[in-house]
């Protein structure tokens, strides 16, 4: 029964996972540092990639802070 409801669609799951890993969770002020490997992410969605890069820029400039 569970399998009928919980969709196993790979694309949705990966997008959901990347959205969480890159855009959610506890963050450290000024210490988010990553290199963006765009080739790997572009096919999953440019919008997601851009939103993640934008988030990283905000973090670096200290506009968003959860933990000091």
């Amino acid at each position, binding site marked *: 029964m569970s399998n009928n*409801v*919980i969709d196993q669609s790979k694309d949705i799951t990966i997008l959901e996972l990347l959205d969480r890993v890159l855009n959610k969770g506890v963050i450290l002020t000024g*210490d*988010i*540092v990553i290199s963006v490997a765009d080739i790997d992410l572009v096919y999953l969605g440019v919008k997601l990639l851009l939103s993640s890069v934008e988030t990283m820029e905000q973090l670096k400039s200290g506009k968003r802070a*959860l933990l000091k």
Partner: protein
Amino acid sequence: MLIYSLLAVKDNPEKLNAFLEGLTGISGSGLYAVRVNEIVAVTGDISRAELLADTSNALVFAAIIESLMQEFPVLPMRYGSFLESADAVSRMIERNYEEIKQNLQLVENKLEFGLKIFCDSEKLKTALQPISETDATISQNTGSEIHTSVFREYVNTKLKAHRLEELLLSHVDKVIAGITQQLDRMDALSKFKKIVAPATVIDGVFLLEKDKKEELIKAIKDLQEIYPGMDFVLTGPWPPYNFVETTIK
């Protein structure tokens, strides 16, 4: 040091050390626990330059947090959270100890689920059209000023489209209310976003007790039967990524 997650160890911190020995971090790096009383940061010895935001690294990062979640209450860190040393990690935990502890208590024994509901807005509007047209007829009979205006047809067309949009939004709100009602019975925390575009999407995330998982699945299945024109996609269980957005000052 890359920080994967904060978690709570109570009586048995040795269990975590044994657990970490069985896991490998990004690029094959080791995983280490930095502990301050009951709170631990799980860290990896990977350099900043090595951490790429590619899919495989993100999958490893997520997999480690999910493994930890099976045994401990976790607060997932955002990908790319670095501190320069174990001492710096300890100081960070000490500075934020109470806030972290409260957040860990909030998510203890709970799981996050995601729900996306998709539907074709145009099809839904077609289904809702008869209701909208009934409203428009009433308006035509009562709105004498519009009735006599040369712009009547234009205004009525706009009005009809506007009412259709309102009906669509009202329908989406009704669906969300139905879900919320079910979630309230399960004492779940929830957040919703709605996007009304060519493909209407309702995006929800829930945090609920682990033992309510089957109840949630049944509730979503029942809702899918009530709204056959919409596609319900439930994902999870996830670590509580969407429920750790607390500002600590």
